[in-house]
């Protein structure tokens, strides 16, 4: 298990490294000069040249790449253009807000998606199954930012049930939770559909298995069979899906943060664009990418914990 975890982490690190390479080549290849971007349209050529040499943009490409990677590995993502604070610190300050929202979205997507998938599988072909099926497809299809705007319009502006903007008063848990409801609804809604569909499909497959027949032949209650025997196996693909889903939810959370004016990585980067705070953008991209890769490694390890067969193949 340990060796497997190490190997998986190694692969994850390689992917992050290649991601840095791609990011670097994008910066290098896309027309547009980071220095002139940072200084804005009124910069004089002298100012740009001065900043270019300060940013190391006149060095050979490989040297630039090496500097970029080696300092990133040491946790040095550069300093923010405006305040001069380290980018990593600024990003890490905002990360918890985004993570809280993503976690909240996952929680209720899982809490609703899994039972709905089970119900659809058990009532396969029936009316309930068809309704769940169409609804799942529908919530997957609609982009989360449209859900966010409409949810804001309906629940905050019209009905005034929930706060429209902000993350709630600091220190007041209830108001913070109230402020979380709408954004996490917008981010998680589609995931209910994804999870319900996946659980339904793998549940149907599992219920066909011989060991389910054995459990029935021993007279175990059907509920017990579904929730303790079948779901245990049917849940495994969902764990993998959630690993991949974190990336999508990070994306959706950018929109949710902007629509609901919440603090977080998304809002940080969005504002960094308008102020052309360019190191902050690349820094945030790297941090979120690394986070995504790590979550996927974690998902694989969780699968190992849940499935003894996979665990055996680790060794």
């Amino acid at each position, binding site marked *: 298990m340990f060796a497997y975890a190490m190997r998986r982490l190694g692969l994850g690190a*390689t*992917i*992050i490294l*290649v*991601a840095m*390479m*791609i*990011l670097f080549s*994008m*910066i290098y290849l*896309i*027309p*547009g000069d*980071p220095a002139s*971007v940072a200084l804005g349209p009124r910069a004089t050529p002298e100012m740009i040249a001065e900043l270019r040499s300060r940013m190391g943009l006149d060095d050979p490409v490989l040297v630039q790449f090496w500097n970029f990677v080696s300092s990133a590995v040491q946790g040095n993502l550069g300093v923010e253009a405006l305040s001069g604070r380290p980018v990593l610190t600024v990003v890490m300050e905002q990360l918890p807000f985004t993570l809280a929202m993503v976690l909240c979205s996952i929680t209720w997507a899982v809490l609703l998606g899994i039972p709905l998938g089970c119900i659809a599988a058990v009532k396969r072909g029936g009316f309930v199954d068809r309704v769940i099926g*169409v609804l799942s*497809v*529908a919530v*997957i*299809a*609609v*982009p989360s*930012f*449209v859900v966010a*705007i*409409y949810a*804001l*319009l309906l629940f905050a*502006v*019209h009905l005034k049930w929930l706060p429209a903007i902000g993350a709630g008063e600091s220190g007041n848990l209830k108001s913070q939770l109230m402020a979380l409801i709408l954004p996490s609804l917008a981010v998680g809604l589609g995931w209910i559909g994804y999870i319900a*569909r*996946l659980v339904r*499909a793998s549940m149907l497959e599992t219920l066909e298995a011989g060991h389910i027949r054995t459990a029935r032949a021993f007279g175990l209650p059907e509920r017990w069979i579904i929730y303790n025997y079948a779901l245990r196996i049917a849940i495994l693909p969902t764990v993998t899906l959630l690993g991949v889903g974190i*990336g*999508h939810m*990070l*994306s*959706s959370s*950018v*929109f949710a943060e*902007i*629509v609901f004016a919440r603090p977080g990585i*998304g809002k940080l*980067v*969005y504002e*960094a*664009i308008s102020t*052309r705070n*360019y190191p902050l*953008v*690349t820094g*945030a*991209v790297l941090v*979120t*990418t690394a986070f*995504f*890769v790590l979550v*996927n490694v974690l998902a694989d390890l969780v699968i190992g914990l849940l499935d003894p067969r996979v665990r055996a193949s680790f060794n």
Partner: protein
Amino acid sequence: MSEQASIKPAALRARSFPGLAALRKILREPMGFFGLALVVLILASAIFADLLAMYDPTKIAPQNRFQGPSLTHLLGTDHLGRDLLSRVLYGARIALLVALGSTALSLMLGIVLGLMAGYGPRWLDAFLLLVFDAMKSFPTIMLALTIVTLAGPSMVSVVMVVVMVSVPGYARIIRTQTIAMKTAEHVTAARSMGAGTIRILRVHILPNIIGPIVILASMDVPVVIGIEAGLSFLGLGVRPPTPSWGTILNDGFANIRDSSWIVIAGGLPIILTTLGFTFLGETLRDVFDPRLKGR
């Protein structure tokens, strides 16, 4: 003479039959019917926007600003007095243009890279796989924000984002199938008869693997529409005054408290389009290639 006459209709029937049968199958499913109807509606409004729109979508009329829906302006007007229905109709053009164009471009690049990885040497395959995985690790919107920061907000940036996001997925599927086809009998036979690599890929491999990937790509159209609208909503995609559903949402969002019809007008076409394409895509997949189910 008479022989020819009797052969012709049969041949015609044989050619048109599969398409018709598939259409009938799609229409029999409620989801397929609904999806197709929506897609036809959207396509029609994009193609005939000139005829359907009663106003110039970019014409500013300050005296008409913030008018709610009425008979003269069915969806109301925005903060500059522009007719929202006209903007929505022209917005369909932008949305479909970006979606279809960038999906086609991604598909082309994905196929080329996938064939290279699948048919090329080992080291190239390993390298490309790593690149695909790394590209898929960027959260979509973070990647988009980076590209826009560097290249500035424009339609080209949107296309670039879509390509970066979708190419790795297509390439991976093409790669897997190419590897499976590589050792197929007819490919081995062609190679032993001295066919060149390009010819083998073009004639013997590609036609056999292109079907499923086109279906999968068509199912990504709503996702791409979402990306365009999303970036335009953030002010990072299509530039005003070009009408786009995302920019309508952006205009409306600033005035959501007093003039909610603007965001409704911007969001509704996005919802209808993504639902339509998704429902149609799901049905298409079930009809043509049930193997892809549950992807």
